[in-house]
């Protein structure tokens, strides 16, 4: 079992949630989403995001509109749909539960170790 794989899986697991969260308040185009995610070190390479965006869009959680760009090709601005907002709300709950649970478990472990 490679540590790299486990790490990547962990990251990928929360990626969908993070993408939806980035789009929570404002529509954004891919580079902006990428910047946020890269700053947070959630993404190493950009490629990963495209299949995810397409899947989220196909699932009806996201939609997009085209906007002209001055420096390159037209950009796709993604935004949350109503379903996407509901979905995100549920994920928020799940995430905080999970966070608590993980915290609880790991803290207990470290307490025991001491």
């Amino acid at each position, binding site marked *: 079992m490679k540590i790299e794989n486990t790490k990547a899986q962990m990251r990928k697991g929360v990626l969908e949630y993070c993408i939806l969260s980035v789009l929570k308040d404002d529509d954004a185009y891919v580079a902006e989403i990428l910047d946020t995610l890269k700053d947070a070190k959630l993404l190493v390479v950009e490629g990963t995001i495209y299949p995810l965006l397409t899947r989220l869009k196909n699932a009806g959680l996201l939609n997009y509109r085209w906007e002209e760009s001055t420096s390159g090709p037209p950009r*796709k601005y993604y935004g949350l749909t109503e379903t996407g907002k509901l979905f995100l709300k549920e994920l928020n709950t799940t995430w905080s539960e999970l966070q608590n649970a993980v915290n609880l478990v790991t803290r207990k472990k470290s307490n025991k170790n001491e």
Partner: protein
Amino acid sequence: MNKTVNINLAGIFFHIDEDAYQKLQRYLEAIKRSFTDSQGRSEIISDIEARIAELFSERVKHDKQVIGAKEVDEVISIMGQPEDYLVDDEIFEDEPQPAQKRKSSPSKKLFRDTDNSYIGGVASGLGHYLGIDAVWIRLIWLLLAIGSGGTFIFIYILFWVLVPEAVTTADKLTMTGEPVNISNIEKKIKDGFDSVSETVSDVAKNVSDSVSGAAKNVSNAAKKVDIKKQGNNIKSSSRTFFDAIGDIIMFFFTVFAKFVGILLMIVGASALIALIIGLFSLGVTNFIHIPGLDLVDVVNAGNTPIWLVSLLAFFSIGIPFFFLFYLGLKILVNNLKSIGNIAKFTLLGIWILSIIGLIIVGVRQASEHAFNERVVEKQEFYIAPADTLKIKMAHTDSFGNSYRNHNSFKFARNENGDRIIYSSDIEIVVKSTTDSLATLSIEKYADGRDYEKAIERAKNISYNYSINGNEVSLDDYLTTEAKNKFSDQEVDIILYLPEGIIANFSNNTKSFLNYRTYDGNIVSTKHANHYVKIKQDEVECLDCPTEIDVDIHNDNNGIKINDEGIEVKVDSSSLKINRNGVKAGSPEVKVNIDKNGIQVKSDNT
């Protein structure tokens, strides 16, 4: 100095170095391969292209700047390797995908591995495909070739022609079953360069070796030769020999195969074109009523619309020809894009359905003829024993058909303008009777799906005749309404004539009489236009030319007299007189009298 390529990436124009372009293309290709269509491949790719275009435009300072390998590398490192694009489906997919399994063991394809070939690379290609060492495959080929008496040589050649050679790196990877991604392609290319450089140096070495070896051999045979080198030489020369022979054979077989391919294509295409024309000309007639052309419609007693039948026939014949055409094309174009399994199976399905349809139509059609029934109408009439009865056909030109042909069903309109069928399927049978009255019996026959239908159709046949004193006048056609369809309507006229009277069948009855007399029919075509006397079960022709036909013989002796001539045979002696001359012969002497004169040949010389 570098060549550049102009590319359009997401609608933006870029100059790019050729090698950088190749790299980018391979990269995009590899990414494309890592998705399936169900994941929205084309959309993902266009998004990625757009992003790459954006990244490039960030790096291009002015219009004339060319994108080089460095920029492409940077972009690839930002975007990530194709492996990174593969999102772990198990985490995200709502339902487990069966396609997942296929991805984990990339599908292999059969190619010819010309890098490791002895002849055509078929064996090593099969080896890769089946995951067996090529040596075993070669051994099996050899055994099969010997065991089958050469059949497998032909099959080998077929493989050689039909299986594409692994040319590109992607081909080679698909052949060996390694997943196609950038790192593998690069590895493969590196391997390729190594092996090429090795081969080049090998060849160079071998050439110089063999040249010097040959020189040595010729000048000094006794000189010691490096055995190992020689062995290598033999192997390499066997390889080059087979390569050369292979190239030549390959060339001829390619030519031959292409020829066969062209032939198949021509056959397939022309058959298809003919069928399409046939389909339209037949199908169209049903929609546009061209008088006389809806004949087929009426023949179709089974009530199946003609367009359906022609469509079924079109599919059942056309689809095999289409595949023939496709096969021809496939032979011509090695890596022809497949028409796809869906298309193939759809066509196969349509074909099977058409065949079934045709069988059903055929059965229905046949069942229309299941019953053949008749309706009989009789009329007696008196004829004085001393009188001569005249029988003639009432010649009608009303339907413009004076020419008689059996089963000549025609289509016409009667005086009211209704569509009718008329046919001249009429037969005259003459029998003798001891009654004093003559009888004319009209028997009408028709086919039908069942007894009632057949009887009804037979009843619906209208046929006219008239008896006027000593003259019987018979129509030479029968008619029935078009709705009765062509169902083998037939009229038999049976004349029972009292013995002793004289009858004269006019010349126009000839084609309605039987060709020969038989039990129950005493007048035949040869009696037409003659006076015949009715006797018990036979007639005596009063003015027929006398016919001689004598044939008396036993095993060894015999005499034969007819219009051909006279032939007499006694033991081994014979005499023949005919229009060629006289021929006589016994064991000792032969006499010939003919246009060449008299010839006498005797054994007693």
